[in-house]
């Protein structure tokens, strides 16, 4: 049964290889990808259920015991995120045929898509730092392919910057692993954690921790390192934007969560205190960025940044409540960012522009999209009864428990600015007099609406049905506070 842990990586990988064989048969590729994504989602759900019933599943690749071989660790946290990833992928794969051009679909979109999912799932499941680097590269390579697919002028220009910043941070990651290897002599996360616990995290180890923070902070777009994010994220096709916005930065946050709840936890006055203030600055600058532009896609892209700030705040306060809030908010934010990017893409496609000043009265033509955008805006800002509310509430409760009241207030204030930035799109774009020049394309709008409604259903479910999900997410929070459990389940002492 331990082979279960590898299924979420292997199924998309094989599917990606198979779909590469018949790229020109677009219809077959489409149906094949949809079926395979459904299968992979069901498998992920089943593995999550299995883990919930029987505890963490550890797969030692090739029967080499823990510190010597590569281990895959499917615990509750990683499987929750893998399932979320698969659900988002499901919505995206059904949205893709409507928004992709014929050429983009024929030139290996589905292969890149499956490799991206495989890389993201792998990064969530792996228990080895160098293997994490490799899975980062798998998902980044796929994302390079996706971002430049189509080869428009603006895409080429922005992907150049995207590739450069990611290449640099990957090289920094390798250097940091080299440092860590020279100090502790292993790359297995559980064993690193154990050894660092033994030597009580000396100064050099804290330095390495901060270096790792910079690496993952670049991937996750935290305060001084977010400058690369907004533009490359809005240039590709909306499906690609949705996949990026929902998954890529969240892999960075997951890595921070893992590393700073498991490995570098002994010198929190320096590391975790620092995170709280970085989180506060991320919140402020992200919210200001979202207000600074009239491009609806850009507004959504900037909104990734304060969300990441909230999650970092939960890591920084370091208590079980904070972790619980972070995970709840993380799952909610993956859904809502994907839904918002798909919505913005649909609006831009139907109206023919993403400039807010050129659209008005869209509610007359597209009532369904309009109200879905309204719900999405409320979820993003954290209005009850939707899921954003519960995540933020628990997070800020964690921050207050840890006496970070100023940062909690900054969090609340930035929520207001976030609400303003998205509701501005609703008020200016959807309200107002009917614009007679737009002829409603009802069929296209319906096609776009289904996958978005599917994602919004989950954000509402996570909010209204919080009582069903909260206990298991709370148990993840407790689990993260107690790294010994992870270490023992991997190293089997």
């Amino acid at each position, binding site marked *: 049964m331990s082979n279960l842990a590898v299924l979420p990586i292997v199924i998309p990988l094989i599917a990606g290889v198979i779909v590469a064989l018949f790229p020109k048969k677009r219809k077959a590729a489409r149906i094949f990808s949809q079926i395979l994504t459904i299968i992979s989602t069901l498998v992920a759900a089943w593995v999550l259920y299995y883990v919930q019933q029987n505890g963490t599943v550890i797969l030692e690749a090739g029967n080499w015991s823990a510190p010597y071989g590569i281990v895959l660790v499917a615990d509750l946290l990683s499987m929750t995120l893998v399932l979320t990833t698969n659900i988002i992928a499901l919505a995206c794969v059904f949205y893709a045929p409507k928004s992709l051009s014929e050429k983009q679909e024929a030139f290996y979109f589905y292969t890149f898509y499956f490799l991206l999912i495989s890389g993201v799932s792998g990064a969530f499941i792996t228990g080895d730092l*160098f293997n994490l*680097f*490799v899975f980062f*590269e798998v998902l980044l*390579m796929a994302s*390079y392919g996706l971002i*430049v697919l189509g*080869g428009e*002028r*603006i895409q*080429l*220009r922005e*992907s*150049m910057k995207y*590739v*450069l910043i990611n*290449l*640099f941070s*990957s*090289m*920094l990651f*390798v*250097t940091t*692993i*080299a*440092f860590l*290897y*020279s100090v502790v002599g292993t*790359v297995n996360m559980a064993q690193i954690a154990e050894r660092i616990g033994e030597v009580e995290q000396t100064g050099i180890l804290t330095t390495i921790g901060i270096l790792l923070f910079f690496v993952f902070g670049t991937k996750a777009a935290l305060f001084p390192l977010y400058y690369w994010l907004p533009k490359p994220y*809005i*240039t590709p096709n909306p499906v690609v934007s949705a996949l990026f916005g929902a998954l890529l930065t969240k892999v960075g946050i997951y890595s921070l969560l893992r590393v700073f709840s498991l490995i570098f936890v002994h010198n929190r006055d320096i590391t975790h205190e620092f995170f709280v203030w970085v989180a506060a600055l991320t919140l402020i600058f992200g919210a200001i960025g979202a207000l600074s*532009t*009239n*491009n609806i896609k*850009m507004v959504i892209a900037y909104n990734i940044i304060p969300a990441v700030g909230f999650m970092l705040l939960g890591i920084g306060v370091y208590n079980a409540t904070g972790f619980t809030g972070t995970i709840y908010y993380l799952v909610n934010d993956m859904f809502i960012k994907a839904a918002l990017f798909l919505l913005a893409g649909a609006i831009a496609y139907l109206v023919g522009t*993403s*400039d807010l000043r050129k659209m008005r009265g869209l509610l007359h033509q597209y009532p369904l999209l309009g109200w879905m955008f309204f719900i999405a805006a409320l979820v993003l800002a954290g209005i009850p009864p939707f899921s954003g509310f519960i995540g933020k509430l628990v997070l800020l409760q964690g921050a207050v428990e840890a006496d970070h009241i100023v940062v909690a207030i900054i969090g609340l204030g930035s929520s207001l600015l976030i609400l303003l930035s998205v509701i501005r799109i609703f008020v200016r774009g959807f309200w107002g007099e009917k614009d007679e020049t737009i002829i409603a394309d009802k069929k296209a709008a319906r096609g776009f609406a289904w996958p978005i409604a599917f994602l919004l259903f989950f954000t509402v479910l996570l909010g209204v049905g919080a009582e069903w999900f909260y206990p298991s997410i709370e148990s993840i929070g407790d689990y993260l506070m107690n790294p010994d459990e992870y270490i023992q389940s991997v190293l089997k002492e």
Partner: protein
Amino acid sequence: MEIVMSILAGILFTTGIYNLLQKQMLRIVIGTALISHGAHLFILTMGQLKTGAPPVLEDGISNYTDPLPQALILTSIVISFGVTSLLLVLAYRTSKVNGTDNMDKLRGNEDDE
């Protein structure tokens, strides 16, 4: 020996970052190549450079060099090969389509405002 190698890796990093901050696209690509050389040299150095036989099992040898960093480097080298070749093609296409290889001129704002 580690000291010399560390300084060398440091020099590679410095020159790499200097090139990364240039305007011309090809210089930037060269900068990334230098940085990855620095990183790979660094892994080798950090695995410690004790003298020993190459890590291939043979009779009568008891002292081998550390095999793990070599495996890590090999992985990292092929990955950076892949990325560098992509980057070169990307730089070629970008300069062709946009008509310039100067990063300063690749700012453009046609999509916002």
